[in-house]
């Protein structure tokens, strides 16, 4: 009994000390509280609302909204979203890598070059969508103008679902490659140039230096770019809306199309929940594969 009381008081001593530390930190947490509360109030709660509403039909729990989703084009729109996202990411990664590697080298006009490739970062998506709608017009259009000027046959850009998606995934490069290039450039510039020199003295060719030094050095940054860009790629909305409208559907245009009619609004909640799940699954996948270490740091 006596011993126990003694132990109790000792424990409470530790607890008190811990409380003191916590209380010191609590003040600092208070500074961050408005920002955190803002984000929870305007982001987590709405997201929960959408998920909750998607399971309601006439005020009762039901899976009805999900059971009719396929007839609204769910599977095709998921497939299309994946095609556009993966394709756009690949295009952006390749272009960004080329830009970042070029920017590492000294050459005349490098300042102007970096300005030209970075400026589209500030372009509004809707402006980019508008310009690319002028470039890829079926009849005429600037892309066909270039082709015809060089003696090629004009192309009907919007001729099938696949070519429509192709135009969207390509057009996305303009605004979004600069960010990826800046991320990769940050990684490349951290590699010591002596490493390349040593490798070429040892007889490693350009390709070997690329696969053995460059790629490993920027692998973690590629996974970060994949996370940051990949998530926004699943969210593209303005670009497909302007370029292809609702045919073929991607998840976001499916959500919006059903949201804009009051009768099908619950359907859009169910589709939004599906999109939320896909994005969460993708983020967890990328973090597990490559970014986890950086993320935890």
């Amino acid at each position, binding site marked *: 009994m006596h011993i126990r009381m003694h132990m109790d008081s000792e424990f409470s001593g530790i607890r008190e000390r811990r409380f003191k530390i916590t209380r010191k930190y609590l003040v600092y947490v208070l500074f961050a509280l408005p920002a955190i509360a803002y*984000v929870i109030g305007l*982001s987590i709660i709405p997201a929960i609302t959408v998920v909750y509403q998607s399971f309601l039909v006439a005020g009762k729990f039901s899976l009805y909204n999900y059971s009719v989703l396929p007839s609204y084009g769910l599977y095709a729109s998921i497939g299309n979203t994946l095609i556009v996202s993966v394709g756009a990411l690949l295009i952006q990664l390749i272009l960004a890598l080329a830009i970042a590697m070029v920017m590492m080298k000294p050459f005349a006009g490098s300042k102007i070059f970096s300005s030209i490739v970075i400026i589209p*970062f500030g372009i509004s998506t809707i402006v980019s969508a508008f310009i690319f709608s002028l470039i890829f017009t079926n009849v005429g259009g600037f892309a066909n103008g270039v082709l015809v000027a060089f003696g090629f046959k004009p192309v009907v850009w919007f001729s099938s679902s696949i070519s429509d998606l192709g135009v969207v995934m390509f057009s996305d490069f303009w605004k979004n490659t600069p*960010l990826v290039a800046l991320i990769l450039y940050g990684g490349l510039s951290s590699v010591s140039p002596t490493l390349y020199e040593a490798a070429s003295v040892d007889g490693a060719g350009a390709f070997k230096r690329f696969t053995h030094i460059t790629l490993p050095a920027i692998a973690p940054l590629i996974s970060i770019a994949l996370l*940051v860009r990949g998530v926004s790629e699943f969210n593209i909305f303005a670009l497909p809306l302007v370029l292809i409208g609702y045919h073929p559907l991607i998840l976001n245009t499916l959500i919006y199309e059903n949201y804009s009619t009051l009768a099908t609004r619950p359907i859009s909640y169910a589709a939004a929940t599906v999109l939320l799940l896909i994005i969460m699954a993708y983020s967890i996948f990328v973090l597990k594969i490559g970014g986890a270490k950086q993320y935890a740091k």
Partner: protein
Amino acid sequence: MPNKTNPLIYIVVLALALLFFYPFWVLFLIAFEPTKLTFGLIYPLQFPLEITLTNIVNSFNQVDLLGPLMRSLEVAFIVGGLALLLGIPAGYGIAKLTARISNKIIAFLFIINMMPGLVIAIPISLYFYSAHLENTVLGVALAQELVVLPLTVFIIMGGFRSLPRDLENQARVDGAPLSSTFARVLLPLIRVPILIAFILSWMTSWDEFTYAFIVAPIVPTDSTFPVALYNYVTRDLPLQSATFALVATVPVIVLVVVFQKYLKGQYLSGGLIG
């Protein structure tokens, strides 16, 4: 000679520069060429044979361009200002916490950022409707704030972290209250991160479409420029749209060129890089 520049690089440079410059060029041609050379031809030429200001002047007379631009300006300044108002205290507080806790908070904020814009915008617009914030400058700004807040907190936290630890204590020992230490000692030292955070927030808001489209959708004169531009594009008014796109793009080009040296991967990917 390790520093010799391979002439092949100029081919890559030229190709990339052309690719990234071409969309600007198309916008320029549409805006400044007479329509007989752009929409009048099946295959528009790539070089301007004639330059005119008629398209621009007519567009300003035909549609309301200044209204949406002024709204965008208002929204962007509210978003930038509110980001600092919430982000500076948050960045300060989080910088003071142990790395373990602060990283959790930052990670939490960024996970929020991964939420699909459309998924969040829809219920928000319904809340705003009952709070009479739909189709208002404030409503659009409050919704867009979500997009910029995590990055703002992260950049400003980085600024506070880079300051020497003793600095604040010394100022406090001298008897200055926290508020004046903050205003006179700390804030001037992190003016660069604050500026970057503000510019990035401002630009994000200026360009943002999804939230603006859902919160202030209907009347073009009531919406920000991206929504109004979308409206003109879908109404098949390419000349007016081109003028609009041009006028709205000039300020961001200036901003990006002026602040180019601050646009770095580690800022923009927000927290995910060490």
